[in-house]
Structures are given as C-alpha cells and as structure tokens.
C-alpha cells in the first residue's frame, strides 16, 4: 500500500504551525475523509469545517496543494499521486482570519453583502427567461474560493470581489424600486468595477461553476456601459 505524507500548515496566535502525518490506506477518498482518517488514526483533532460532505454547502473550502478547493470534492488520488509525489499540503484559505486549524472566519463576506445592501426592497419581478441564469448565481456557497484566487481582493479596501456581481446580477434583475436600482449601480461601480482587472480566475475556481463572467458583464453593462450608450446617443 502506498503511503501519503500530509502537511497541515496553519497559524495559532499569529505564529505558523506545521503538523505532519502519514497515512496508509485506501487513497480513493476525498480530502475531508482523509482528514477524518488522520484524526481517528492518531487520536487527535485537526479542526476543519464540514457539513454536507458532498459539495453542496461550501464549508470545507481550503487550500489543497496551493489551490482553493472544496475538500469533500477533491479526491486524494487525482490530486497527489501524479503531480505532487505522494505529498499533500493542506492550509486554511489565506485571505480570511483563522479561527482554529483549518477553520476560517468568513464574516467579512457577510459584512460586505450587508454594506452593499444585497436584498430586495420590493416584490421580485419574475421573468421566466431569466430564471436559468438567476438559478445559477443563486448557487453561490459563500465559500471564498473566488476571493482567495482573485488578484485584486485583499479583504481591506473597497473591492468586494465577484460575490458582489454574482448576487447583484440577480437582485437587479428582480428589483423594481428605481431608487434602489440606482443605488445598486453605484455600489457596483465603487465596490467592484473600479477594482477588477478581469483576471477571470474566479470562473475557473468556482466549485459551483457559476458563470461569474456573465454576472460581471451584466452588472458592468447595467452600471457603466449602459450610461455611456445613453450619453453617446444624446450627443448625436
């Protein structure tokens, strides 16, 4: 049987902590199951967050050999045997404060969503043609993979990352209050448009395969380009 070397790289009280383990056994398992086996096998507790164990809830987003992924959908065999020589490094996502081991505090995302007023003030306007797209953006897990990989998001300045247009592309399609729509456009410009350099990496890493580029371009059109078109037309 093959042996896997596991390195858990995290922080405690601002200091780096490295924990190393070995595991021999069935390797056709996802990383969450691996963590469980390491815990049981060593009578220890590496804290990690998991809930559904089948890629539906986003709890277990972490860095696996440097990539932000859902640990429950990332199988060890594919990941480590070919590319990483039987070694796996597991870290918490780096752009969020660490609570314990692999558990992170994502409250910044939720604070941003509140600040950006991501809710409907009026009854939703339903257009059956828009439903497939609205369905896709509603799948967002708030797992943070997109923010982790985004070259522009740092959790500190105005830029809120692609979670904002993913949410507001649905909300602005359903909202009927003109005043609120105007506000959403301003928020998009301030908290997204001005900060995104279009690396497009968010669409590649999203575990739910949300069409983030479509969400972005819809919001850019509504908030920025649409106004240019109007302006140009008036000039002519």
């Amino acid at each position, binding site marked *: 049987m093959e042996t896997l070397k596991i390195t858990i790289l995290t922080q405690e009280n601002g200091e780096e902590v490295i924990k190393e383990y070995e595991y021999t056994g*069935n390797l*056709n*398992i*996802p990383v*969450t*199951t691996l963590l469980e086996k390491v*815990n*049981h096998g060593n*009578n*220890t*507790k590496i*804290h990690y*967050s*998991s*809930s*559904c*164990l*089948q*890629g*539906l*809830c*986003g*709890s277990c987003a972490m860095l696996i050999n440097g990539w932000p992924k859902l640990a*429950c*959908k990332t199988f060890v065999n594919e990941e480590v045997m070919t590319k990483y020589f039987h070694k796996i490094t597991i870290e918490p996502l780096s752009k969020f404060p660490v*609570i*314990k081991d692999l*558990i992170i505090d*994502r*409250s910044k995302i*939720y604070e941003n*969503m*509140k600040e950006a*007023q*991501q*809710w*409907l*003030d009026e*009854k*939703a306007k*339903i257009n*059956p043609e828009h*439903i497939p797209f*609205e*369905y896709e953006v*509603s*799948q*967002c*897990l*708030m*797992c943070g993979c997109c923010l982790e990989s985004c070259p522009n998001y740092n959790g500190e300045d105005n830029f809120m990352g692609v979670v904002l247009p993913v*949410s507001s592309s*649905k*909300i602005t399609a*359903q909202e009927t209050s003109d005043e609120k729509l105007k506000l959403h456009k301003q928020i998009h410009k301030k908290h997204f448009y001005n900060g995104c350099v279009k690396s497009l990496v968010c669409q590649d890493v999203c575990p739910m395969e949300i069409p983030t580029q479509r969400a972005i371009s819809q919001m850019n059109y509504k908030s920025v380009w649409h106004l240019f078109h109007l302006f140009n037309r008036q000039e002519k």
Partner: protein
Amino acid sequence: MDTKNVLVIGAGLSGLTCSVKLAENGNNVRLFSPSPSERSQSVMAMGGINAALNNKGQDDSTSQHYTDTINGGQEINNHKAVKKLTDDAPEIIEWLDSIGTSFTRDENGNIDQRYFGGQKKQRTAYAGARTGKQVLTAINTMLRKYEHENLVKRYIGWRFLSLILNDMSECVGAVLINEFTEEIQSFEADCVVIATGGMNKVFGKISGSLQNDAGTTARLLQQEIQLANLEMIQFHPTTIKTPVKSMLITEAARGEGGRLYTIKDGEKWYFMEEWYPELGALMPRDVVSRSIYKVCNQLNLGINGENIVYLDVSFLPEETVKVKLDEVYEVCTQYLNLDPTVDPIPVYPGIHYFMGGILTDDAHKTSIKNLYAIGECSAQYHGANRLGGNSLLGAIHGGYIAAEEINRQTVTSSNNNEIIRKELEKQMEKYAQWKDNQTSEYTSSYTVEEELASIMNNAMGIYRDEETLREAMGQLEQLENEKIYSHESYYEYVLIKSLIHLSKAFLISAINRKESRGAHQRIEYPEKSDKYRKTTVIQEKNNEMIVSFNDTDEKMGW
C-alpha cells in the same frame, strides 16, 4: 403589540423563516448557528416542496394534500397541524416566489410541479435539482435586510448548552457555548425557538449534514422537555454507499420515471410495479424501503446476493438525468464512478429523516412555556412517515407559525437576573470540572461515537424486536459508564454524553410502541393497532424515562 426578544437556535430554513417573520413585526432576534446558513442541511434538499397549486389541471386541492399527508403518516400526524400546513402551502409558494426563488417553470410560465411519492397528483414544485438551496438563498437574502437594520443579530459558531428555566419551569433564556473559543454565555429572552434539525449523529454518518448532531434535542431531554415519536425514523429507499458516507438519490429520480428492479431468474424484475400497480416505485417511502428489504432479506434476491437493488434512470432522456436530476448525475459520477445515463444505480434504504423529535402542538409550542420548536427537530406534521416534498414545506411553515404565535403572545416582565446568573454559573462549573479532568488515557470520543452508532443502527433498523432493543439498552448503559476523552473539545464531550442518553429514549420509545405502523415495524407485532393511534411521548423525570401515549392533537395549554 409588544416587541419581543427572541433567541432562534439554528439558521437553516425554519430558523431563517422564523427570524424573517419575527423581524418583519419589529421583534429583536438573536440567531445562533454552528456556521452560516449556506452550510445547513436545508441546502441538501433536492426534490421539491409540496403545495396543491393545481397548476397541472389535475383537480388537485389542499384537502387531497391533507389526506395524502395523513395517510402517508399513518394517522398519527397532528391533524390540526397538517390542516394548517396543507392549507397554507400555496401561500408559502407564493411568498417564496415573491422573494425571488428561481422555481422551474412549465411551458406556460407557471411554476412546474412533478410527481412525488405517496401522491397521485403532480404537486411538488421544484427549483432545478437544488430546491432547498434555491429557497434558502432567497430567504437568506431577505434576512440580510433585517440584519442590516440590527433587528437580527447573528452568532456564528455557537451551540446550545441549556435552557434557563424559572421556578415555574418557564423558559427565560438559554446558555450557549462558542464551539471553538469555548466562551460560555447566557442570553435572556422572552421566547426561545429551537430549529436545530434532525438527530443525525445518533446513527453516525447518515445522508444528512454532520452539523445536525442531535445535541440540542438531547440536552432538552435532560431538562425534562417532552419528546415525541422517536421511534419514527425514515429510511429513504434509495441511498448509495460511498467511501465518504451514505448518500441520497432523490425521490425525484423516481418522480421523473426512474424504475426499481432486481434480477430474478435471469430477468429484470420490477417488483414495485408488480406489487403496487397503481403507484409502483412512488409508493410512500416506508413501503418502498420495506419492499427493498423484503427483496434482499426474505426473498434473497438482492443483486449478487448483497443488500442492493437497482434504480434505473438510464432509459430516461439524457437531458432529464443531466439537468433535472443533475445532482444524481454528479453524485454517481463523482462518488461511485458510475454514469447513470448508462448503468443502473445500486441502492438500498438508509436513515434519512426523523419524524420524531421535540413534542410540539399545532402552534409549535413545546411542553415548556415560551419554548417553541420548528423544522425537523419538532415532531407533529409527519406522523409515522413523511412524504417527500413535505419537509421543506414543514420547515418553512413552522417558521411562519412560531413567529405568528410569538407576535400574539404578551410579555410579562420579571427580574430573572438571579436565575440567569445561577444557570450560567452551573454551566461554567461543569466546564471547569471537565477541564481539570481530561486525559488521553480515557476512551476516545471517536470510539464511543462509533460504538453508539453501531448499537443504534443494529437495534433501530427497518424491523425491530424487543430482545434486540433491550440488549441495546444494556450496551448503552455500559457505554454511559465510559470515561471519555474528547480531544480538548468541551462541546464534543457534552455532545457525546448527552447523545447516549437520548439514544436510550429512542430505544424505550420503540419498545413501548407494540405495533407496526409506518416507519416503526415490530417483528412480534406485525399489525397496526388502534390503541396506538397516538403520539408516543417520552419525558425524563428524576432520572427515569416515562412514556405515555397522548392524543395526536393535544394542545400544550399555555
């Protein structure tokens, strides 16, 4: 109307709905959960939500929904609660639609509805293959507004420890713990709403969320709150075994036309269609599960002699499998390495839902004044067997009703500072005792959890008998005496201790119901008995568990 201070414990669909409805009326809500709402088990509900919208021209009506629910639950549902549930269902769908849920539409632009088990009408509205997630996103978005207005304050990472009860045994608040920082805090409140989901962890890793660990229900039992129908555990007919855990293949697979078969004399045998020509594989879940059990264990016709039959969707249009059932497609390809558009899926029944839990009446009141329970943790709507599509409905409806009741209640102000201080001190002392008394020489909590799950799965299977149940009681008593090492986690320690206790209540409830009804099948009592057309109520008093059989519609009287 008075403004109330409410603690809502649990932020899945029922807790979210209740919080939204409370905040709409200006109440102050503190909403506790182990993690954000996106992580709740609600997002795992695929199939849909039942309501007699009658969008399909089949003359559906709320009274037929009522009858199907009562028949499915084998008449021990709370009838008054089911009446409200089914009457309110169309309005709930309308509300979900109005707050932006992306329901799948039919060619006329109406909300589409499909067939689900135990119902002859197309009554199950759905949002693609992820109804729970889609509904949750909409309600969560709505709640954000009230969080912004500071009417709702969230506490993430918190778990319930105990209720604060005054001299009259009325609830005046709760003590909770932050699972990671181990901060223990008391919270005063006019009302407490429990929305903590099913009792998954008693049975180890079942199909649902790991976070629904039964801890709150277990600790409420220890504080003498009445629980109900614990023996009523739903086995979903079609679960698959993966290296991760048991996973569910949604009933929608059969709703869309999927067929169940095994091999008999070298031929495919569609046993459900032969035994139940009218509904076939879409009989209520308890019936389908028992049929599969019979095929494998009594007729010895499981595939390759194993506890397996096949669920076949491969003959359906590829688009149906990949779009309407995309979760089935993903689970099979990712975790089984099987393409369901080509091969049949090997399935067997597995534990999936708890019809039993905290006893509540049709107003979602519990046996303790000012304490409500909603969602899967509360027992009332589903009786001896829940229909597919009624769980999302029940969760949301519970949130509606509890909020309505709380709005109606009048607040009596009294000074509870002393009581609150005492309860907090008591919990802090327990924590200090544990802290001083931990060593890895004790039995690992992992081992205890596994033993507990093994005892309970063995005793509380699809068929039960007194001897096995009593044997399990003995094993639990032994387990209770183990000294446990919980890897420096106090919450884990409290949890496992209380779960052993709760498990005894499961067994005692099962021993006392001496009949076979719905999800509870006793080998010695194969028939249904009118004597037990009642709710099994269990309560712990002075270290003794007392069982009684109450009228299904009994009110709490406060």
